């Protein structure tokens, strides 16, 4: 078996890292990574707790700015976005994020989606209505909430809240969606619904998803990266990772020998 196996997908790349490492203070939490994420595909990041998957993910849209030091390059649309010159707000609009715990705003369902849009200068009621409907349909939530758009988002169930967060994220029309264990707080039925939603969104969005659920990674993703103690050991087609891993650590992990 190999020590490491990291492929470069033969597919148009949406975002990639080059020698990207992350430090918390003096401690190096993530060793240099070189990963390319293909456009309109779902890539799963797997690995045990503490393997720095989330740290990696959150660095991609600069959510780690205040808590950690990120070195190296993150290339997106031809520029290195890990630079102080980049407009982080605009960057985060284009690289959206869905979090582990559903975190809707304490606002109506409608306002949850439109608040960021209004900030971007979209004021026309008709346009807003249209985007709200599109995003809720995209997140497979429209049919459940279309008659209650002015209801508080906090009154929705956990699964609905998480789909609302996805709708909210896609409403600002990002190119990439980062998902940080999006189903970990959901029951199996909500999880199935969420996965179905992600599969559909794949047509228009590049997605990178951290998950602890191996079946979920196998079911939904096209590519998978395996993280272990702050290092990426293997990155390949999901089928290879689960059926024919090249690295012993990966094999042990996917077979459940540690985790």
């Amino acid at each position, binding site marked *: 078996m190999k020590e490491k196996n990291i492929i470069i997908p033969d597919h148009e790349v949406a975002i990639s890292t080059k020698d990207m490492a992350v430090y918390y203070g003096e401690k190096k939490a993530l060793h240099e990574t070189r990963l390319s994420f293909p456009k309109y595909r779902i890539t799963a990041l797997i690995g045990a707790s503490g393997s720095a998957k989330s740290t990696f993910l959150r660095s991609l*849209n600069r*959510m780690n700015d205040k808590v950690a030091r990120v070195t190296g390059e993150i290339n997106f649309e031809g520029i290195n976005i890990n630079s102080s010159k980049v407009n982080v*707000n*605009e*960057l*985060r*609009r*284009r690289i*959206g*994020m869905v*979090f582990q*715990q559903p*975190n*809707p*705003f*304490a*606002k*109506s369902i409608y*306002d949850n989606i439109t*608040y*960021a849009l209004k*900030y*971007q200068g979209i004021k026309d009621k008709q346009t807003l209505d249209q985007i709200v409907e599109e995003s809720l349909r995209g997140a497979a939530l429209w049919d459940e909430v279309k008659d209650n758009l*002015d*209801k*508080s*988002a*906090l009154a929705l169930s956990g699964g609905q809240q998480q789909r609302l*967060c996805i709708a*909210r*994220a896609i409403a*600002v029309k990002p190119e990439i969606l980062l998902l940080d264990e999006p189903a970990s707080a959901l029951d199996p039925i909500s999880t199935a619904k969420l996965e179905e939603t992600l599969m559909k969104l794949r047509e228009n969005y590049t997605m990178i998803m951290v998950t602890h659920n191996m079946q979920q990674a196998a079911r939904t993703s096209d590519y998978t990266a395996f993280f272990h103690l702050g290092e990426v050991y293997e990155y390949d087609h999901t089928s290879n990772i689960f059926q024919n891993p090249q690295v012993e650590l990966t094999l042990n992990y996917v077979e459940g020998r540690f985790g």
Partner: protein
Amino acid sequence: MDAKKVDRIAKRVIQTMVLMIVVLLVLILGYILVTGLSQTKLDFIFKISKAAQAGGGIRDQLFNSLYLLVLALLISVPLSLGAGIYLAEYAPDNWFTRMLKTLIEILSSLPSIVVGLFAYLVLVIKFQIGFSIIAGAMALTFFNLPLLTSNIENAFRNLPDSQREAGLALGLSQWKMIKGILLPRIVPSIITAVILSSGRIFGEAAALIYTSGQSAPILNYANWNPFSPDSPLNIMRPAETLAVHIWKLNSEGLTPDADAISAAASAVLIIVVLLFNISAHYFGEKLEQKLTAKR
């Protein structure tokens, strides 16, 4: 003794303590209201006060108290909102921020008479503002600020980080995130802080004796010109408040019915505070509902 028994005893003890507090409160409130309202006709609210004769009222003092409250809140709420937001959301965690917080705590524990004398020396004498309602409002701002600021700061700190992340991840700027997502959620805390400080403002006498003064020029409520000396809106006029009036009647009052008037004025003071609290809660809830779609 078994655990169940201990549990029952503890519960009884706690219940007794609560009961004692409730009884005490009811007795005090009942005493003030009954003695206050039984001795005077209620129309004394609409009469002007008299220095040396019986039958005076508290019309202008009551108005002054309310006007002073509005002025003090107008100054202190925006200031403390800014300071609270800065401390909770922007300030780096370093020695300077910690020093700032310590200073705020010290400010909140200053005796009100010290604050009053300080405002008297600086505002009334040094800046020659004279005994005026605005000097009183500024003195009250001094000890309103720490309470309001730390309440608002804590309210922001208690909000989960997930809300901040959710906003920032959508590409909102820090300020837009604070204003649109965090601020609506702390409206109830702001209302509570305002209510607490308004109770203090209504009841404050020591800090006002030397700032807004002990005289109440007779006001002409038809005169809305804020520069005219007998206009109720004028902020440069001396303005004895209800609490100061009660203190004065009891300490150096020449009015024959001083006891009756001060008792009745105390009752009115309590009722006004109560009304203010109820309406602040009501409007706060309405505002929160509007901002957060809560029902």
